[in-house]
């Protein structure tokens, strides 16, 4: 079983809102000072799901791929330290400022070039733009079936057995291989690599593929190939100023709140 994990490096979503700034002229997020970018959380969970299948099925292999800046090497190394076998960075100026469609085009081309891939695991959504569509678009590009928002995935039945989180419960689904699965936080926490693994991963070479390596047209990727155009990125206004309930005792504070809510005709 050869599983490809798609991993994206993103600005740390735990950045305090006060440090979150936008460059309005260029519709870009200004990286917060002193806060390093991270592996998108759901992608770490997707890697965990892939590694558990690798461990349960002898002879399996996990390859991690990431499209992004040179710095995305760090996200790749993190997944290698977790136990992935190989890493590929897809870095080319032509890939920049694209949309979900062009990202999927690049990732799918890399997966085709790798060859002999049985499954692709993605995060349910990248925790920067929160789109939740690249995994689905990769599946459509490859012509593979897909199961999204998985809380469990294992080999079995026709190929993979997946437990999905729906808005009103859980669904068990079976898919033949090859297939794409997107993994959600309900799956559980990713493993924490230990120092020797981190050091071993640091020594591994990460393959770098560019536009030409993937046989793609510059017009099909990055800004040139985008269909979804970002017109404006801005910080929404917060609500008004909070009125804190005064009172010496919890009873007094609670009574003050009930009085306000009654006056507002909410209670």
């Amino acid at each position: 079983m050869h599983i490809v994990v798609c991993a994206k490096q993103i600005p740390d979503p735990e950045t305090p809102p006060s440090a979150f700034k936008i460059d309005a002229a260029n519709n870009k997020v200004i990286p917060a000072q002193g806060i390093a970018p991270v592996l998108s959380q759901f992608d770490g969970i997707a890697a965990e799901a892939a590694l558990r299948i690798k461990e349960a099925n002898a002879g399996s292999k996990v390859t991690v791929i990431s499209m992004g800046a040179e710095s995305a090497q760090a996200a790749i190394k993190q997944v290698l330290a977790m136990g992935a076998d190989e890493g590929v960075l897809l870095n080319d100026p032509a890939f920049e400022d694209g949309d979900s469609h062009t990202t999927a085009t690049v990732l799918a081309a890399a997966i085709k070039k790798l060859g002999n891939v049985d499954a692709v695991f993605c995060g349910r959504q990248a925790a920067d733009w929160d789109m939740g569509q690249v995994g689905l678009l990769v599946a459509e590009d490859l012509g593979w079936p897909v199961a999204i928002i998985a809380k469990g995935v294992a080999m079995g039945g026709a190929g993979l057995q997946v437990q999905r989180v729906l808005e009103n419960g859980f669904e068990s689904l079976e898919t033949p291989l090859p297939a794409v699965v997107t993994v959600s936080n309900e799956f559980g926490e990713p493993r924490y690599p230990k120092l020797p693994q981190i050091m071993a991963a640091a020594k591994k070479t990460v393959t770098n593929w560019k536009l030409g390596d993937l046989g793609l047209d510059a017009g099909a990727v990055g800004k040139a190939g985008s269909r979804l155009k970002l017109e404006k990125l801005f910080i929404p206004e917060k609500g008004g100023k909070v009125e804190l309930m005064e009172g010496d005792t919890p009873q007094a504070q609670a009574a003050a709140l009930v009085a306000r809510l009654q006056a507002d005709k909410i209670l």
Partner: protein
Amino acid sequence: MAHNVLVVGELAGGSPTSTTLELLGGAQGLAAGGSVSVALLGTGASAAAAKAAGASKAFVSDDAGYDAVKAEQWLAALEVAVDQSGADLVLIAQSSAGREIGPRLAARKKTAVAMDCAKIEDAGGLKFTRPAYGGNALATYSIATSPAIATVRAKSFEEATGAGAGEVVQLPAAGASRTNITGMEKAVSAGLQITDATVVVSGGRGLGAPEGFKVVEELAAAIGNDKAAVGASRAAVDLGWYPPSQQVGLTGKVVNPDLYIAVAISGASQHMAGCSGSKTIVAINRDKDANIFGFAKYGIVGDWKAIVPALIEEIKKAK
């Protein structure tokens, strides 16, 4: 400009869901002289067409094969509906089904989808606004290709009013799907759903233990089980203290109640992305600098273990 809008509807108990009616309401406004169509798939679809307010035409199939959404079957039918309706705008709910159908339909129609939109307007072309960066930012997009597709959050539009679809067009029965559903486990709280409740009381990691939710449930019960439902932050859900179906936020549900009470929730942007549209937010938190107070109208700084029981007492007294 006039638009031909296709709404991908969903059915519950033989009727269009409230979100479907909201999408139809949005479509009525955006059509501006163009047409509004709806696609309805599954048992009772033909009959439900008459209840799809605001649509002039319905594309339906009553085939029960569509009931449990297997996206590949829906996609095949929806591609036909898109072509026959001449839609240049397709609206889909940001639901379990919609999250999958939106991107795949976009791929098949060689166009793009804007996911999780909170606002769609025609301002010199269609503009789609959605939260990004965990709700820290809002992003407005345009779509260069046609049809433009959007998945839309619940409560983004007012429900449509008026007559249902007069003209009904039959779609083919459900075809094949490579994926196969082998089981379904319902996991929603009994009674009122958080998305329908006028009051939502949510608990967070600061409750300290799953038992804390018992007290939060008592608070909801004191307000009235016909009005109030209980939600949870993702931190509490990830700890296994409350079911995922009750999670409020970016990766959970969007709620817009009259009153949202956040108990021991810090107010991370990803949580607020699911509740900041509430009319009044009340925060109970022992940290006076907690982010939640930036969104709340009223706040109590203190330990929930003391505040919430007192609040339950006061609410009972006031009744």
